């Protein structure tokens, strides 16, 4: 504000603060800052006053205390004597599990549907359009609840598997589809299985090495080596041979009906499946639109040019259209991932124990620490979305550079 005192201090009028463009922005910012500080001070003083009146305080000690409740789906060791913090971590992992699996499934369905929407086949095109419109225009919460209800109502309960002539039976004695969830066989790794897995990883690396070699041969020596069958062979043969050499160290743990429920195997609960599936097909409808828009944005001349070079339609898609379309598709795709992750908080409607269910649900209820729990919950989601946004920015910058 040196200009203020330097020359025209005497002629300075108060109204200049509002009407003189030189000072006005300072005035406005000052007022805005003041209002903001006042707002926070007001809210803060209310908070302090309310907490004092109620005799409460803000403290995060409850995180260290035993949670006291059980969680059905836990990816890490947890029981009712573990701390609230651990319960929250269990919830975080469950959130990430459903979010990651949801993103994968949504991408697969979304890309397939998006491409099929541009298919030459009229019927398929129409069916896909109906799918996209129906799923985009109905709240995801309703889809989650519908899938859960239908799931529970249509599939048999474990008790139907019991008895001499059961109403339901397992598929190949290995899979059981019940209203409470799906039971799968679970591989159990015994001694020596490490070598089998190492072989498997080595053979995958081998496939990549072979493919690189084949490409090099093609470009340098002009020899076209077969790729598909050697890859299949590399994928299966070493692992199977090693599996038998080591004396079959990996066995399957099949689910079987014991008592009230199936025991053993992997249990995917109905809450998890309905949440996962509903989030995936809902988000896939949006992704399909993004994919379609991305493909349509690649000018038709590109396709025609590729066709005139003699490329087959599949290759045109893979080598010409998709690489260009991806640049348009990926930014909205990532924001759809973000939406899916945030929508996974609807888990609470079906009783899936994600972080909203543990930290923002039971822990909040049991300890009464509403402010602390909700704050932590928000910070978690904020961190996730900032991380995803960061990835998006990095990608956008990378794409931008290529354009020049």
């Amino acid at each position, binding site marked *: 504000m040196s200009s203020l005192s330097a020359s025209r201090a005497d002629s300075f009028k108060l109204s200049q603060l*509002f009407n003189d463009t030189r000072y006005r*922005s300072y005035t406005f*910012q000052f007022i805005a800052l003041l209002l903001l500080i006042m707002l926070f001070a007001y809210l803060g003083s209310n*908070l302090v006053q309310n*907490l004092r009146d109620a005799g409460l305080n803000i403290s995060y000690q409850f995180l260290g205390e035993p949670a006291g409740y059980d969680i059905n789906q836990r990816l890490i060791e947890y029981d009712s004597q573990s701390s609230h913090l651990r319960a929250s971590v269990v919830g975080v992992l469950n959130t990430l599990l459903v979010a990651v699996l949801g993103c994968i499934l949504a991408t697969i369905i979304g890309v397939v549907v998006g491409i099929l929407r541009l298919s030459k086949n009229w019927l398929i095109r129409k069916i896909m359009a109906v799918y996209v419109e129906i799923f985009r*225009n*109905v*709240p995801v919460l309703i889809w989650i609840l519908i899938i859960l209800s239908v799931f529970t109502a249509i599939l048999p309960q474990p008790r139907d598997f019991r008895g001499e002539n059961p109403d339901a039976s397992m598929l190949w004695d290995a899979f059981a589809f019940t209203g409470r969830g799906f039971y799968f066989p679970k591989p159990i790794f015994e001694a020596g299985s490490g070598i089998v897995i190492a072989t498997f990883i080595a053979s995958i690396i081998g496939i990549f090495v072979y493919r690189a070699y084949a490409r090099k041969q093609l470009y340098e020596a002009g020899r076209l080596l077969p790729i598909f069958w050697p890859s299949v062979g590399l994928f299966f043969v070493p692992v199977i041979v090693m599996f038998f050499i080591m004396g079959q160290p990996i066995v399957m743990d099949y689910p079987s009906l014991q008592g009230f429920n199936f025991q053993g195997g992997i249990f995917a609960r109905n809450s998890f499946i309905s949440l996962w599936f509903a989030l995936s097909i809902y988000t896939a409808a949006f992704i399909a639109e993004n994919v379609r828009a991305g493909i349509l944005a690649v000018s038709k001349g590109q396709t025609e040019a590729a066709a005139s070079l003699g490329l087959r339609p599949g290759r045109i898609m893979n080598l010409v259209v998709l690489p260009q379309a991806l640049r348009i598709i990926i930014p909205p795709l990532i924001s759809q991932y973000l939406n899916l992750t945030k929508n996974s908080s609807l888990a609470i409607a079906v009783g899936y124990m994600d972080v909203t269910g543990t930290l923002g649900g039971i822990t909040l209820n049991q300890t009464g620490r509403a402010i602390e729990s909700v704050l932590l919950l928000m910070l978690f989601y904020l961190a996730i*979305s900032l991380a995803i946004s960061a990835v998006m920015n990095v990608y956008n910058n990378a794409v931008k550079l290529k354009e020049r």
Partner: protein
Amino acid sequence: MSKSELAFVRHEILPEQTPPITDAGIVKWLRDNLFPGPINTILTLVAIYFLFKLLSGAMPWFWNGVWTASSLSECREILNGATGGCFSVLTERWNQLLFGFKYPSEAYWRPTLAFVLLLVSIAPVLFSMLPRKLLILTVLYPFVAFWLIWGGTILTPLMILLGFVAGYVAFRRVEAKGFGTAALLGIAVTVVFWWLGGYISSAAPNVVALTPVPSRDMGGFMLNMILGTVCVSLSLPFGVLLALGRQSNMPIIKWMCVIFIEFIRGVPLITLLFVANVVLAYFLPPGTSFDLILRVIIMITMFASAYIAEVVRGGLAALPSGQYEAANSLGLDYAQSMRLIILPQALKISIPGIVNVAVGLFKDTTLVSVISMFDLVGMIRGPILASTEWNGIYWELWGFAVVLFFIVCYSISQYSQWLEHQLQRDHR
């Protein structure tokens, strides 16, 4: 060579022949669109099979539907083992599904009328070919709708409206002396007028009064509609302000807006609803309490503003910078250039985006059922499915919810697409 050596020379053009049957009409269409190749043929056959299965399952369900039973067991008796829907749950609980279970039944005409008026008064905004004078309906609508839905004396919304008018008049009077001063004066006049108006309307609570209905009693699809329309319309001005703030070159204001927008966009709506439900009360002065619906409206409005701000920011950024420079070179100040040049154009190109946000927001209003409010989803999950008569009925109720939301959201998004085409044509 003489002419006679040639056996035949055609002198006139042959008449056009119809194309072969495989290359014309329906057969060609079928070949091109359903059976272009082996893979597509298989796909088509599979699709036809599934469609057939779906229809053969769903059709009897519709045709045999029971509309008059009073409970699920009675309905099953009527059906006697045949496939059929129990649509009687919809007829029996119709009012609950639409209005919730506490809204006074003799007043159902009020929200219905408000809904019809909504369609009438929003038309001038949506369709620019309608006469501009109709916009006055749009301006008046919120006050009429408030009166219709919540009841009470008409003086209350009237005073609020007059307060706005008085503020606007005051603003116009002193506008020449500078935008800032005028805006402050306008706000001051409005607040004073409301304060005085409060005495008037409380002194005469029975002037043209409808039975007051507390907001706690709102429910069913009506609650979704109320939350959707109120929050979208409230978030528009806030969203525009936030977008302008984020584009502003005043660093403090810019960063305040950026932090607000990114924070809100980074958390799921449900955590904000938790805030409304269990946390917000701690931040209010001791002894005050808003009712839940108001707290929820505040939170959803904040949520929607952040998203609308991003859309509007996109619109602002899409304007060529020549527009800004032209406005400056005409000597317009910031408020004038925004109001007269930038915003009208920026908002116009952001309308499709705003409509998308509105559709998303309307769908998100169902989340309030998670914090135990009885909107359409809440009614279905709570009182109806838990009642003795209708326990165990799923398809009919959820199907109804899907149909309602689909009709509303699909028509809005179709409108948005139509508008996009219109705008594209304008730009050519």
